[in-house]
């Protein structure tokens, strides 16, 4: 909303300038968007007088004018039909930027005659929509006077109102707060009741659900037409379009008091009754915006015998609107329910000034005072004879008194405000103060309790005065404030970053088809209002988004992405369905290098995963192959499990079909680790480490080569070896896998290096021999392997 300083001064006795007003508004809670200064926009434009205007030699519609300007007498070519000798108008010099047409003026011949400037229309100056020719000004204005002065334009303060303060949507409401904040004195309200000279012939009925209270009156014998210049100027200065005197009055009252009203041409109303009721199925209305709206039983309409003539509190109907021919006007000043008005606005897609105000809550006590003010103005501008006021229905109950201990101001805000000052602030804001009872004014329905009163006092006293007081010391949780899980999330990030992965944060949503491909896509997880179709479904995994990110990088010429993300995935819409995954994606890429590095990158990824698990304190896990979901390569992927059921991670190469569907060039490798599935140690905090035993005896190594079935995982040989003598065997490492010449068909040779750590004494040859026998036996028993001869 916008207002000007002079308008504010109609309500506030103050010497403050615009910047002081802006500062005071900001500190009272009104967010000033910007100050629109027409002086800047129109600085180059000044008053000029046409001395002579003659027909252009080469163009019928152009005139060549001799003009007295601040730059002396100039020859200017003008196409306006009203360019005539003696006219006082606005001149723009060469080099001026004309806001309405977006051109910077140059001295250029127009059909052979050089124009040394331009004479401007109101549209070119952006002060009005109309453009019947160049501006016609009063002859009293001297040549060289500024356009801003000539039009009486002034700076408009544009501000945002928080939804709790509809009273700020009227200039008087702002004046009241600024007066309380010490910027001046609120002038008394001079609106007086206008006595009616006959009973209102139109009966008003209300359905309380649709419209609790409705005040109206008829004014006979008005003379409508364009409003006087002062009113037009006032409306234009705050960005409103003048229409005709009757409508302009309602807009003025709305802007001045946050009190929207509506005028009907009484001659166009059918029947003796005006009714505010809910709409009926099948009804519709042609509104003032030229569109036809179907109304239903959720919408409040004002209806006559023919049906709806207005959408209550939202927009008027075209067929009952006031025109220059209107002589009898029916004036409506009602109170519409905020929630219903907001819903109507949303349902029909209408956001009018009235709807905006009613949706936030107009003062329920305002219909009659508003009606009187509008009557006063109509009589002043259009004449006429008013009827008595008719009121139907009842305003909702006024706000209740609040028991207010003044000490609560200090307790909640920390501010030291003397009780007399507290009462002074509240009184100036319109609150009724009676001992401990404080009653909010009818326009402050947002104030419900004592905390609201503290806010009123604190913001007017000034948040600047708030003391900065240190938080009291409290006992800190031993071992840091992070839970084990929170700490693991942080450790996972830094562990993967240390191993060369870049952390991405991708959307929690993905394309529905992708979600389905990754086992998700439950209709419960599809947004009803996604921002785009590719962001429609809560993701079952981050894999799809990371593949997509890697593919996008590749398309830009960077095919070697190594990305990870630590974030939520969703199995369903319940809190327990959300789980935290560490997901990594590797697009393996072997750049040319003088020293060739070899090896399967899948095992580099496995090393990263195992290092991460080690960092997170995960226990020993089993590798289970052949059970991964369909988006993994069937032969090059596996799970890491804790026991037969708990899957901690899946890793491997992604299925080429999935990559193709996501328009990604393969191969790509990935792992997905469930952070929540890793068991947590029982206790947080310092853990004493077990005593370290360092044997003085040299460890020795023995190599074994076993023949096993080609399908037997090499990893299955390690566990029985380690179990063959837990005291002596320190490690067992597979160092070679071979199939081919010398190995029977359907078998492979797996070579394992076993590290033996003697504990108490050096082992004899016989003891080593016996240990080897136990190792071979254990492996044979576990996987049917034979020692290779």
């Amino acid at each position, binding site marked *: 909303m916008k207002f000007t300083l002079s308008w504010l001064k109609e309500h506030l006795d103050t010497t403050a300038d615009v910047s002081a007003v802006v500062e005071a508004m900001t500190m009272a809670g009104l967010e000033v968007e910007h100050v629109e200064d027409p002086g800047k926009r129109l600085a180059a434009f000044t008053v000029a007088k046409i001395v002579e205007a003659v027909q252009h030699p080469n163009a019928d519609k152009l005139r060549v004018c001799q003009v007295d300007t601040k730059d002396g007498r100039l020859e200017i070519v003008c196409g306006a039909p009203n360019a005539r000798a003696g006219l006082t108008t606005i001149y723009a010099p060469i080099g001026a930027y004309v806001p309405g047409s977006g051109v910077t003026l140059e001295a250029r011949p127009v059909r052979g005659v050089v124009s040394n400037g331009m004479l401007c229309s109101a549209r070119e100056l952006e002060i009005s929509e109309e453009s019947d020719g160049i501006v016609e000004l009063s002859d009293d204005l001297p040549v060289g006077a500024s356009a801003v002065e000539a039009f009486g334009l002034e700076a408009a303060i544009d501000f945002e109102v928080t939804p709790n303060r509809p009273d700020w949507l009227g200039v008087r409401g702002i004046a009241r707060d600024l007066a309380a904040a010490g910027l001046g004195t609120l002038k008394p309200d001079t609106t007086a009741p206008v006595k009616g000279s006959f009973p209102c012939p139109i009966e008003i009925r209300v359905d309380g659900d649709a419209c609790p209270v409705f005040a109206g009156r008829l004014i006979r014998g008005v003379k409508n037409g364009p409003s006087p210049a002062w009113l037009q100027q006032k409306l234009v200065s705050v960005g409103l379009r003048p229409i005709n005197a009757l409508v302009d009055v309602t807009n003025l009252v709305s802007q001045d008091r946050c009190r929207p009203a509506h005028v009907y041409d009484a001659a166009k109303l059918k029947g003796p009754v005006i009714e505010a009721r809910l709409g009926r199925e099948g009804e519709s209305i042609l509104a003032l915006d030229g569109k036809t709206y179907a109304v239903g039983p959720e919408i409040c309409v004002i209806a006559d015998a023919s049906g709806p003539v207005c959408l209550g509190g939202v927009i008027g109907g075209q067929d009952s609107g006031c025109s220059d021919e209107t002589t009898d006007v029916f004036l409506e000043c009602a109170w519409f329910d905020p929630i219903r008005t907001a819903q109507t606005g949303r349902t029909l897609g209408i956001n009018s000034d009235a709807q905006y105000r009613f949706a936030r809550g107009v003062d329920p006590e305002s219909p009659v005072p508003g009606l009187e003010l509008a009557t006063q103005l109509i009589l002043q501008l259009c004449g006429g004879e008013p009827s008595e006021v008719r009121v139907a229905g009842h305003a909702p109950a006024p706000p209740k008194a609040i028991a207010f201990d003044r000490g609560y101001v200090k307790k909640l805000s920390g501010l030291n405000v003397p009780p007399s000052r507290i009462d002074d602030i509240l009184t100036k804001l319109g609150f009724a103060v009676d001992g401990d009872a404080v009653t909010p004014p009818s326009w402050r329905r947002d104030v419900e309790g004592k905390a609201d009163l503290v*806010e009123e006092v604190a913001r007017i006293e000034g948040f600047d005065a708030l003391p900065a007081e240190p938080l*009291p010391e409290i006992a800190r949780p031993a071992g840091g404030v992070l839970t084990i899980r929170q700490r693991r999330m942080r450790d996972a990030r830094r562990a993967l970053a240390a191993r060369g*992965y870049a952390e*991405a944060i991708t959307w929690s949503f993905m394309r529905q088809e992708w979600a389905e491909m990754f086992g998700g896509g439950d209709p419960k997880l599809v947004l009803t209002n996604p921002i785009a179709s590719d962001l429609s479904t809560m993701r079952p995994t981050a894999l799809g988004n990371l593949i997509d990110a890697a593919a996008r990088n590749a398309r830009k010429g960077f095919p070697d992405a190594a990305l990870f993300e630590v974030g939520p995935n969703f199995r369903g819409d319940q809190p327990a369905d959300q789980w935290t995954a560490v997901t990594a994606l590797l697009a393996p890429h072997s750049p040319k290098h003088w020293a060739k590095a070899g090896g399967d990158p899948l095992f580099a990824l496995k090393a990263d995963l195992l290092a991460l698990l080690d960092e997170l304190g995960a226990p020993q896990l089993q590798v289970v192959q052949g059970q991964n979901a369909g988006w993994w390569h069937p032969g090059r992927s596996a799970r890491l499990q804790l026991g037969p059921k708990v899957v901690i991670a899946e890793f491997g190469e992604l299925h080429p079909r999935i990559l193709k569907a996501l328009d990604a060039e393969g191969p790509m490798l990935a792992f997905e680790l469930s952070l929540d599935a890793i068991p947590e140690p029982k206790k947080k905090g310092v853990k004493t480490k077990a005593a370290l035993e360092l044997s003085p005896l040299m460890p020795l190594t023995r190599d074994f080569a076993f023949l096993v079935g080609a399908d037997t995982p090499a990893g299955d040989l390690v566990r029985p070896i380690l179990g063959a003598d837990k005291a002596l065997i320190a490690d067992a490492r597979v160092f070679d896998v071979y199939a081919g010449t010398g190995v029977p068909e359907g078998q492979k040779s797996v070579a394992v290096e076993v590290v033996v750590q003697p504990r108490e004494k050096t082992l004899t040859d016989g003891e080593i021999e016996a240990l080897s026998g136990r190792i071979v036996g254990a492996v044979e028993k576990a996987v049917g392997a034979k020692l290779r001869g």
Partner: protein
Amino acid sequence: MTDLTRMEAELSARVAAAADLAALEAIRVEALGKTGSISELLKTLGKLTPEERREQGPKINGLRDAVQAAIAARKDALETAALDAKLAAERVDLSLPPPPERRGRVHPTMQVLDEMIAVFADMGFSLAEGPDIEDDFHNFTALNFPPKHPAREMHDTFWLPEDERGERKVLRTHTSPVQIRTMQRLNEKLPSWIANGQEPPIRVIVPGRTYRSDSDATHTPMFHQLEGLVIDRDIHMGHLKWTLDQFIARYFETPMVESRFRPHHFPFTEPSAEMDVKCDRSGGDVKIGQGNDWMEIVGCGMVHPNVLRNCGLDPDQWQGFAFGFGVDRLGMLKYGMPDLRDMFAGDTRWLDHYGFSAFQAPNPATGLS
């Protein structure tokens, strides 16, 4: 005894001329071996008279020592030459590049979150968390958003479909629902990571993903917030001001940040405020702690009595404050990322440039950044 002198000269010359270790060994055996020429001379000493032995002994022993020393010196010289030759052959071109390595990065938003957590942890705040998919009660109703109130509309909420009971879940529009989860215990089984009611006093921060249906250079459909909640007997707005002032000075790593509180409106706080910090916008980018402009940095206020009541706390017994930061935006202000949308694009060049090393974890000894 010119024989001995001649012998020494002859052997020394041969030792010096020995071309390799094998030739040198042959000379040693010839002179000092069991039947070597010097060994034979030593054997003659036993047959001499004591007087002769006194005269000859030192001479022959001297010859032996001299030859032994010459052989050792020559051996050392030959070994050194061999090693030098081997090392010379091992020369490599060290201007060659090492094998390529990837440089890992921590995302700037997560780095900033770690920084924020470090500052608040030092003030005694713990972390609380809640789900991204919320119910209407936690996201709106319990936070004192009246049903159908325009304030709900301002949140540009993402909705999930209606369930059998006609209720719609939402993607949380802010981290504030975790205020409710921290103060109010639910009788349903929740995963242990979700806050589920604690007795006051309460001092928590809540980091997390939040969602609003909006997209431009400063708005994305998903972003990060960090909420703060302090509940105790006598916590007032002055404590809030101190806490935020402390945070801003430590986060921006300058004691000179000037701030102001401005009244605002949030349904879940009363009084409500926004805090602005002084900044300089004249150079195109924003410099915090300089200049004469103000920039809004955090929304805050005293927890609304209705919110306390909705969680079963008596507002006459307990009171406190809450605040909510935009984490991504705070990161942009400190580290200069120009466009919020880039944060979520996963561009490796961007991550490499704006990301942080794994070893830059905020630490009280080294500072935050």
